[in-house]
């Protein structure tokens, strides 16, 4: 009879105990799969939102811009954006490219005298971004919202802003801001629509204005400047490759001196923070398994204790120490595999079940500078399942090895003498 069969039968000898230690591993594996799926979901959502609304796959901007982004560095612009966009769209891996201008300002009106109402201005090209941002689909239907008419002073405001300030479609707003020359500038614009985004950052006090109007406001018109040009890649292209390709193009043109392209991964500090967080959670996951594995150690020790006499018999009959270790180890291994497998399966089921709805985490995320909507939608992937399965099996069978080794050191005579 081979070790495997014997081990299997031994497991059946005390089903409840087997179940219990399997459950410990199961709970740990389940928790891990869910936790990792949530992290992956967060990571995905954050990436998606960032790429879609903020950076694109590749962000082209002045190399100094990021360093000074806190102080509204309007003078670090990308010149001749239309020209550049044509060049970009001519590239193999580029799906499309579009310009952006973002800056801050304040709304004022007779009613708001003595108050300081800050807003962010989001200058975008509704046509060029119809595939990615797709503003039309975000317009709140009940409000009679329209896209801004061309060459008008019409804007869209976020639902958050509309609520906060009691603004409706058709209302006029006065905006005070700064030009690239730090001259104060004021303009009156009409609200043509109200937009809602899941992405909390896009739903605060934001005024979405057509790109050419934004250019006019910050005084970029003379050189057709943009604050950035965002590039969306074709699906089969690697961001890193495209980044390199674009930078090569930019280098050859003296007009684009100081302008650089960066792939999404290299833009966002949030991204690297989340990556770091991911590692921390992986580490915590391992700690969980370690804890669960104390149960395995315990169980294996129990089993050995209980079968001391049997072990004595086996070794009296000539079974070698190594074989005895293997016998007990196999037993623990089977339990570890079953436990991990069940945990991974339940965790996977749970993660997939929760994937469409997610669960609410808004409160806990309050005030934390995280670019996610606050709904946690797990996003399961096979790597998670494999990682957790492997970690579960490795850690818990490692835990079982030592007591199993102990069993081989039991002396036959001693074992037979035991009165219990």
């Amino acid at each position: 009879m081979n070790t495997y069969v014997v081990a299997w039968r031994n497991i059946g000898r005390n089903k409840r105990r087997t179940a219990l230690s399997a459950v410990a591993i199961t709970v740990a594996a389940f928790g891990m799969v869910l936790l990792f799926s949530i992290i992956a979901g967060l990571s995905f959502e954050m990436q998606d939102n960032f790429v879609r609304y903020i950076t694109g796959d590749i962000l082209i901007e002045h190399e100094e811009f990021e360093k000074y982004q806190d102080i509204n560095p309007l003078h670090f612009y990308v010149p001749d954006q239309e020209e550049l966009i044509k060049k970009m769209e001519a590239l193999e891996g580029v799906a499309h490219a579009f310009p952006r201008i973002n800056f801050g300002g304040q709304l004022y009106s007779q009613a708001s005298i003595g108050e300081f109402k800050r807003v962010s201005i989001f200058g975008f090209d509704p046509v060029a971004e119809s595939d990615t941002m797709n503003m039309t689909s975000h317009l709140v239907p009940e409000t009679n919202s329209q896209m801004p008419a061309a060459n008008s002073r019409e804007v869209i405001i976020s639902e958050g802003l509309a609520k906060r300030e009691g603004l409706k479609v058709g209302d006029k707003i006065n905006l005070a801001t700064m030009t690239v020359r730090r001259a104060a500038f004021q303009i009156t614009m009409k609200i043509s629509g109200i937009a809602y985004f899941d992405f909390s950052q896009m739903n605060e006090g934001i005024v979405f204005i057509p790109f050419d109007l934004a250019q006019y406001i910050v005084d970029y018109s003379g050189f057709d400047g943009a604050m950035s040009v965002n590039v969306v890649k074709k699906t089969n292209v690697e961001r890193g490759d495209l980044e390199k390709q674009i930078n090569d193009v930019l280098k050859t043109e003296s007009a684009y001196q100081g302008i650089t392209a960066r792939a999404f991964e290299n833009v966002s500090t949030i991204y690297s923070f989340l990556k770091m967080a991911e590692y921390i959670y992986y580490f915590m996951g391992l700690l969980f398994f370690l804890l669960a594995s104390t149960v395995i150690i315990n169980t294996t020790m129990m089993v050995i204790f209980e079968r001391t006499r049997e072990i004595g018999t086996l070794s009296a009959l000539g079974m070698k120490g190594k074989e005895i270790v293997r016998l007990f180890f196999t037993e623990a291994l089977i339990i570890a595999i079953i436990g991990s497998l069940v945990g991974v399966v339940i965790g996977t089921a749970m993660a997939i079940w929760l994937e469409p709805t997610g669960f609410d985490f808004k409160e806990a995320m309050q005030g934390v500078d995280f670019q996610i909507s606050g709904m946690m939608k797990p996003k399961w992937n096979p790597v998670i399942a494999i990682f957790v399965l492997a970690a579960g099996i490795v850690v818990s069978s490692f835990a079982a090895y030592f007591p199993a080794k102990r069993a081989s050191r039991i002396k036959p005579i001693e074992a037979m003498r035991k009165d219990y």
Partner: protein
Amino acid sequence: MIQVKDVERTYVAGDTKVHALKGVSLSVKEGEFLSIAGPSGSGKTTLLNIIGCIDDADKGDVIIDQVDVRSKKPDELAVFRREKLGFVFQTFNLIPVMSAYENVEMVLKLLKISDAEARERTMAILKEVGLEGMEDRRPSRLSGGQQQRVAIARALVKNPTLVLADEPTANLDSVTGKAVLDIMKAMNKKYGTAFIFSTHDKMVMDFAERLVMLHDGKIESDKRR
């Protein structure tokens, strides 16, 4: 002292029913030294368990000291056992974490007997069963015969009215077994404690003063010698 009337006991294991006792009646007087003998599977253990109040008969009555044990609650039976009955098991069943002394003393502790008295009685009985000097040994450091003597001491230390011993010698070699029986008999004579022990061993049966032969769940013969 003990009346067992028409006791039946049926075990149900899955689909099969085993009639372990098929109407057994037996009466035991104080101070008797009685052996229940019979081949393996004849129902000896079952009968002793029922007399010892650790198992219930399906039918019939068990009356010990004029008390119908079947009318008692589990906790009352536990108290009854701790006060009146002693057990000796085939496999000794000593508590492994306790020394020989502690195993015996335990019974007195359960009876809330004062420490000083418990000590005196424990030491005395251990001496009587011939274990002087071995009080502090744990069961794992005692031979089978020695362990069984501890068990006998444990059964006797509280001066029970009845000691039940289920195949007390089955795990011992014949010389040791005989020694254990000698002690049991001596105790029976000295304290007048009734003993009921079961066996399937011819040699052991010879020790009995009254021999009840059990066969297939029925009493075959009941002889005094």
